[in-house]
């Protein structure tokens, strides 16, 4: 029994640490250690049930061990914000008044596309629709809508520059070359190598966020017949 307990303990700790390191991408609405419990418990219950050569007590002991660990961590979490931060992580402000915070996104192993996806799930399609967006420690996005949200929406914004790199497929949709994009950025006092995010919607409305600068809303001259 003590051997099974210790084995469960090792697997549990490994999974909690790994999930904490993975950032918020892998979790959905659960704290990392709760996710680990859910992940293991189903298998623990199934194996002794399906394999008659294993005594049933092996499953029971492992489940009791998990319960004990879960309760212990729940109590530890209540010790204070530091304990909670160690165990579950802290919320990350990924959009603030200055726009998208790429550093904060990267800390959580998330990309711009992940952020846009989460925003879409919350009903926001443009990066400037939000004043603030916070990735909670349980992996959920909490948005705070921009008071001056643009109501005019004819198409989805295309991600044209993602983390200092042009997204070629979307440039093709825009019927725009890399040189044209670079010259557009130069004209507006920007540079591709300093552009964290650039999206363009169907009305030519541009969301431009450069490194260590507040985001800007610009206008892009869309070519004739360009639609998506």
């Amino acid at each position: 029994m003590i051997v099974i307990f210790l084995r469960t303990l090792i697997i549990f700790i490994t999974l909690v640490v790994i999930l904490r390191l993975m950032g918020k991408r892998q979790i959905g609405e659960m704290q990392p250690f709760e996710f680990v419990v859910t992940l293991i418990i189903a298998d623990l219950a199934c194996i002794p049930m399906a394999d008659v050569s294993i005594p049933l007590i092996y499953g029971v002991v492992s489940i009791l061990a998990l319960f004990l660990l879960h309760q212990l961590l729940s109590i530890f979490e209540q010790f204070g914000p530091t304990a909670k931060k160690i165990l579950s992580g802290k919320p990350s402000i990924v959009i603030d008044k200055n726009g998208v915070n790429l550093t904060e996104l990267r800390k959580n192993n998330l990309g711009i596309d992940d952020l846009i996806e989460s925003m879409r799930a919350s009903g926001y399609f443009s990066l400037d629709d939000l004043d603030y967006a916070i990735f909670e420690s349980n992996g959920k996005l909490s948005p705070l809508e921009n008071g001056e949200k643009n109501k005019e929406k004819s198409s989805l914004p295309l991600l044209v520059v993602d983390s200092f790199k042009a997204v070629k497929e979307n440039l093709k949709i825009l019927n725009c070359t890399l040189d044209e994009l670079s010259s557009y950025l130069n004209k507006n006092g920007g540079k591709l190598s300093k552009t964290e995010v650039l999206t363009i919607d169907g009305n030519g409305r541009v969301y431009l966020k450069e490194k260590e600068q507040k985001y800007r809303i610009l206008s892009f001259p869309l070519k004739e017949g360009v639609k998506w």
Partner: protein
Amino acid sequence: MVKTIVSMIIVAIILTGGALYESNFIKRQFVEFDSLLEVLYEKVENETAIEEDVLSVQKNWLEKKKYLHVFIPHTEIKEVDLWLSESVTLVQNKKWEDALSKVEVLRELAEQIPKTFTLKIENVL
């Protein structure tokens, strides 16, 4: 909070108690089984063993294994069953050398099985 702590204490007591009982129970059963095998081994070695000797060891094992099934993987119990059955047949036919090797294996099993339940690094990893 109180409910959480109480439930934790209860589970911790169950697990600790269970672990101690399991370790003690398995050790006791196999020490007893090994002492019977030791007697049988000496008789087989001296070629004085009779069918009843080995049958009594088998009967004793059948009693023990009912409870050992709770803690030990059933495949390991089956292994002891098979070696014991072979020993019975070999002693009945007075094939002493073969019987001796089977009883030796049984003694080794009686020594090794409880070891897999002790708190050792090789068992945990």
